[in-house]
């Protein structure tokens, strides 16, 4: 027997996150030896599931990786395939895809911020007390997520697992009436979004962060704030095309978890709302920028807990941008549209990347000349964040005096990353050559 005092802090199941995960921390002699974020969500092997299917089935299958960011998975897959086929959809369709994506951002962020993260700060451990004691906050959530769902339903056919998004565009362009309806609701909700952001900003983080994170995010198209792009920007200053993701992202399997994790040059990275704000916050829409400029985030505080606030700010941005898009789409509808180029199936491979609510999502496919998927790879934001979460936990625990009391705070911390374990556990290693 060694006389070293050994302790293990266990959080057997982190509640209020998507999917199933646990944390285990080994402490020896007051020092943190090891931190394990164990994702025990069952594995679903999506990279295998899609093999042998036709390119047009990808959208339906990949959306099932994760309900909350299904639109993101669908778009990443579509972008990859369209790149292989060198296909460009019509401008209207491109805009509507962005609108759809913003709907997802609103719905996902609202649900995460209000229903999953806020109860920690409001101290409401169950839903009945949240709904009962904080009716107006509960309503804030229902309104905002309804808005996100409404957008996705108008464009994609239902709140998630969209049925209207396909390789080659949309099967039906939403009617003017439905888009105008969406716009009216967007306008109505802007104030609520601002209110939510202010609310989230009013809660001081219960723990502190020590080392500066390493941020990654896609450089958005145009010079707007956005979620679609081709090139990755890092907070260290380098830029790389997402086609080369395998060269900068290093995926690893760990024994104790079903989720893989990625490092960049051996370092944990952080992706998601905070990363996007840190790198492109200056491009935010008006109201969103106003709020952002008043936050500790803007001043450089990179405490991970502020990710909740970053998401709230992105809701404001999404609402403002969505209103613009509706107008742009309606304007485009009036223009004489050129005949759509037919899809041409060719063999090839490519990566599609989008900024999902939780960060950059990569989908890579190889397609043969019949349009059949021959190889696939997906790198999810949660996989990229996992190493950083473990590092965060390690730092927080090391620094703390009363380590045993930390449990709830650690959960709050993990939750702030909004880890999506259903996403993180889809993986199958493919042997590249």
């Amino acid at each position, binding site marked *: 027997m060694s006389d070293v005092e050994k302790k293990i802090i266990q959080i057997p199941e982190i509640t*209020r996150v998507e999917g199933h995960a646990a944390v285990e921390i080994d402490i020896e002699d007051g020092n943190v030896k090891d931190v394990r974020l164990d994702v025990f969500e069952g594995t*679903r092997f999506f990279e295998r*599931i899609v093999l*042998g299917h036709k390119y047009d089935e990808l959208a339906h299958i990949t959306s099932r990786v994760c*309900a*909350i960011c299904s639109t993101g998975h669908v778009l990443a897959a579509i972008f990859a395939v369209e790149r292989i086929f060198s296909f460009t959809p019509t401008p209207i369709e491109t805009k509507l895809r962005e609108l759809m994506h913003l709907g997802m951002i609103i719905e996902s962020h609202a649900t995460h911020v209000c229903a*999953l993260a806020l109860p920690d700060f409001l101290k409401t*451990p169950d839903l*009945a007390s949240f709904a009962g004691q904080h009716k107006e906050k509960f309503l804030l959530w229902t309104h905002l997520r309804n808005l996100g769902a409404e957008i996705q339903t108008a464009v994609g056919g239902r*709140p998630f697992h969209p049925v209207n998004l396909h390789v080659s565009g949309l099967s039906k362009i939403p009617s003017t009436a439905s888009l105008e309806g969406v716009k009216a609701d967007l306008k109505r909700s802007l104030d609520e979004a601002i209110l939510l952001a202010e609310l989230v900003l009013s809660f001081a983080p219960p723990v502190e962060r020590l080392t500066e994170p390493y941020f990654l995010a896609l450089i958005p198209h145009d010079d707007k704030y956005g979620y679609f792009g081709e090139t990755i920007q890092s907070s260290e200053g380098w830029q790389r095309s997402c086609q080369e993701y395998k060269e900068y992202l290093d995926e690893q399997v760990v024994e104790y978890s079903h989720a893989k994790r990625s490092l960049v040059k051996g370092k944990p990275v952080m992706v998601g709302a905070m990363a996007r704000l840190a790198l492109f916050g200056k491009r935010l829409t008006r109201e969103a920028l106003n709020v952002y400029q008043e936050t500790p985030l803007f001043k450089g505080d990179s405490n991970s807990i502020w990710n909740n606030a970053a998401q709230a700010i992105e809701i404001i941005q999404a609402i403002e941008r969505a209103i613009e898009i509706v107008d742009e789409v309606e304007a485009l509808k009036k223009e004489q549209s050129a005949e759509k180029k037919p899809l041409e199936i060719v063999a090839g491979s490519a990566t599609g990347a989008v900024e999902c609510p939780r960060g950059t999502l990569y989908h890579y496919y190889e397609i043969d000349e019949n349009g059949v998927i021959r190889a696939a790879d997906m790198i999810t934001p949660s996989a990229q964040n996992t190493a950083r979460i473990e590092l965060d936990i390690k730092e927080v625990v090391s620094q703390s005096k009363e380590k045993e009391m930390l449990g709830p705070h650690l959960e709050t911390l993990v939750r702030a990353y909004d880890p999506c374990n259903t996403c993180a556990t889809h993986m199958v290693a493919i042997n590249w050559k």
Partner: protein
Amino acid sequence: METNPRPCIAVEGLTGCAGELLVILENLDKLLPFVRVASFPFAQSQNDDGPVDIAFVEGSVSQPHDLEKLKRIRAKARWLVAVGNCAVWGCVQGGACAKCKVTEMLEAVYGQHSEIQALESKPLDAYVNVDVKLSGCPIDKTQFLSVTASLLKDHLPYITHKPVCLECKLKENPCVLIEKNLPCLGPVTAAGCGALCPSLGAACYGCWGPSQDPQMDAMATILSEKGYEALEIMNRLKTFGAPAHLFERMNV
């Protein structure tokens, strides 16, 4: 005021996309006046493991941990309701397991001596007795609420197993299988979604799982006459978990 304690529900997830949890979470405001949420780890931190009247279970059984959890839930629930395609049919992961072995996939990912275990993805009724099966991917909110309303009265709910084509025709959609030769699986897929895809001019890809007594052989014949290849047809028909016995009559 209240004489009877409100019925207790549990909402639990096994391996899935969390879609049903999300649908239920998003409709919780409607349920809260009538139920007590004893357990819903996706949405609340304080969860108790006591007996419940209704347990809604999402996801398929894909690892030993899921199975243990399912058995625990079965033991505590009066009504065990499988929600979503994963729980009812096995969804895309079930469809894939029909094609390749889990052990091989596991090895490919985590190496040979990994402690990580996986089971072939299967729907709940492969392991326990399921009282009600509400499919959908994700479940339809109206169906969910009416099923819950029945269960709260201890009534067996009505869940249609007629094909998507019925809803499609009731909506008076032009048939995409006929007019566009799209591989629409509406004829063999259970209704419930309101024929979402064909209403948008797209083919139904079967996300609700099979209808009652689906004519898979006739479906395959018709698709092959439209130029789809046998392998592709089978892939499409099996993607969303249609079990093997439905294909027995087939000579493809």
